[in-house]
C-alpha cells in the first residue's frame, strides 16, 4: 500500500488542505479502478466506507490477493468534514460542480482540476455519494447516460437497483459525467443519510465494492453473488410529496415492499400535535428513498418508490404443464 498525495493546498491560517489516496497494486498489469469518497462534508458514511475499504485492501495486499490497480481517496473536502459543513467552507461552492476543473480558476476549480488529473487513466471510476437532498436511500447505483457509460460492468456490484438516466444540465459539471467523457467507466454508489454512519448499509456497500473488484479481476477473492440488479429509469420511480408541513414520522423504512394503499407515514402539526396528513402509497413497489429529517416542508419529497410494473421489467416466462 502506498499513501500518496493527490492535492495539497496551502491555507492562510490553518493546516493545508491535503487530499490523500491509498494506492494498491501500483505496478499491476490488470484492470484499474479509482474510488472517490466524501466530496461533501456531510458524506461521513461515504468516508467511513472508503476508510474501511482501505483497511480491508491493506490486509488483502499482504495476502497477495490484489491483482489490479486500486486507488482509494477517502476524503476530498476535509475542511468541510472537520467543520460539519456541506460545501467548501470559504465560499460555499460545491467541489462536485467544478469538474473537469480549471487550474487558473477559483479555489474549488483548482482543487477539481488537480483531483481530475490524478483520476485519469483508470478503467473504472467509482464515486461514493450521498443524496443531495434531505433524504436517505437504499444503496443504489447512479449511472448517467452520457453515451460513454458502461451499464454491464456495474451489474457486478450486485446492488438491487441501478438508476440509469439521462444527465441533467448541472451534471455536466460533475465528476461522473466528465470522468465518463474522459474515458473512464464511471458510476456512483449512492447510499446513506447525511451526517450519519449506518453499519448495516456500510456493510452492504463494502460487500458490493468487493464483489465488483473480484468480478472485474482486480481482487482474487471468492464472493457471494449479489442481487440480479434491476435497471430502472425515472419513469419507474413514483415521487410522493408531503402535502403539509410539520413533524414527519415514517412508518416504513427504505427497502420495504409496499402495496398500493399501505400507510407510509404521517405529518403532524409541529405545535399542536394534530395529525395533518396520512401518507398512503399510490402504487406497489419498493421504498428506495425517504425524507430523513423530522421537520418537513410542504411539497418536500417524502418517499420515492420504485415500481416493477413501471420499470418495464419483463416477468419471467413460466412453462405451462401440458
Amino acid at each position, binding site marked *: 500500500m502506498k499513501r500518496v498525495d493527490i492535492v495539497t*493546498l*496551502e*491555507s*492562510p*491560517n490553518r493546516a493545508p488542505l491535503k487530499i490523500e489516496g491509498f494506492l494498491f497494486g501500483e505496478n499491476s498489469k490488470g484492470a484499474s479502478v479509482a474510488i472517490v469518497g466524501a466530496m461533501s462534508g456531510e458524506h461521513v458514511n461515504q468516508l467511513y466506507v472508503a476508510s474501511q475499504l482501505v483497511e480491508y485492501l491493506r490486509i488483502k495486499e499482504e495476502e497477495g490477493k490484489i491483482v489490479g490497480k486500486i486507488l482509494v481517496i477517502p476524503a476530498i473536502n476535509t475542511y468541510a468534514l472537520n467543520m460539519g459543513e456541506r460545501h467548501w467552507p*470559504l465560499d460555499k461552492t460545491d467541489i462536485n460542480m467544478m469538474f473537469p476543473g480549471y487550474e487558473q*480558476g477559483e*479555489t474549488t*476549480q483548482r482543487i477539481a482540476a488537480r483531483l481530475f488529473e490524478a483520476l485519469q487513466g483508470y478503467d473504472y471510476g467509482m464515486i461514493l455519494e450521498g443524496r443531495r437532498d434531505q433524504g436517505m436511500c437504499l444503496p443504489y447505483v447512479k449511472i448517467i447516460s452520457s453515451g460513454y457509460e458502461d451499464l454491464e460492468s456495474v451489474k457486478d456490484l450486485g446492488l438491487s437497483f441501478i438508476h440509469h438516466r439521462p444527465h441533467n*444540465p448541472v451534471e455536466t459539471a460533475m465528476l461522473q459525467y466528465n470522468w465518463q467523457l474522459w474515458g473512464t467507466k464511471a458510476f456512483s454508489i449512492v447510499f446513506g443519510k447525511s451526517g450519519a454512519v449506518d453499519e448495516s448499509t456500510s456493510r452492504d456497500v463494502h460487500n458490493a465494492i468487493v464483489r465488483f473488484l473480484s468480478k472485474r479481476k482486480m481482487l482474487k477473492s471468492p464472493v457471494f453473488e449479489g442481487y440480479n440488479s434491476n435497471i430502472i429509469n425515472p419513469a419507474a420511480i413514483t415521487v410522493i410529496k408531503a402535502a403539509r408541513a410539520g413533524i414527519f414520522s415514517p412508518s416504513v423504512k427504505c427497502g420495504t415492499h409496499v402495496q398500493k394503499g399501505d400507510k407510509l407515514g404521517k405529518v403532524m402539526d409541529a405545535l399542536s400535535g394534530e395529525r395533518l396528513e396520512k401518507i398512503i402509497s399510490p402504487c406497489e413497489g419498493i421504498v428506495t428513498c425517504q425524507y430523513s429529517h423530522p421537520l418537513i416542508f410542504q411539497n418536500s419529497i417524502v418517499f420515492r418508490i420504485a415500481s416493477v410494473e413501471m420499470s418495464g421489467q419483463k416477468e419471467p416466462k413460466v412453462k405451462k404443464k401440458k
Partner: protein
Amino acid sequence: MNKIGTKTLVVEMGVGMRLGKSNGEQLLEGLLNLMRHEGILDIPKVEVRFPIQSHEGEVVYLNASCPGLFVPAIEHCQVVQKGEVVGHIVNALGGKRMDEILAPITGILFTLRAYPIVYEGSLLGRIFGEKQ
C-alpha cells in the same frame, strides 16, 4: 433557464451579506424599466444609466496565487492602467508581503474582493478592458 426557453439574465451588484440602498434603488429602477420595455408594466419610462457593454472588450480575472490576507491598493470601480498595483496578499500570521497583484490590462476594475481571507485561486477582482 435559457436552455428551456425562458430568457434569463443575472445581475450582480453590491457586497455579500450587506444591504446597499443606492444599489437596491438602481436595480429596482432597472427592473421596472425592463418590464416597461417588455410590455409587462404600463408605466412611464424610468430614467436609467446607459450601460457599458462587453461585446468588444474582454473581462480578465484576478485570482490569488497564494493564501493570505488580500489588501486592496485601489478603490472599486476605478480605471486601472496595465501594470498598476491592484493590491497585495500578505501572510495572515506574520504580515509578510507574499504577492503583488498587477493589472494585466488597462480597464475598469468593476469587481473588487471585499472579504480579505484568500486561498490560492480566490477571486480578487475583475477588470473590463479592451480586447488584447
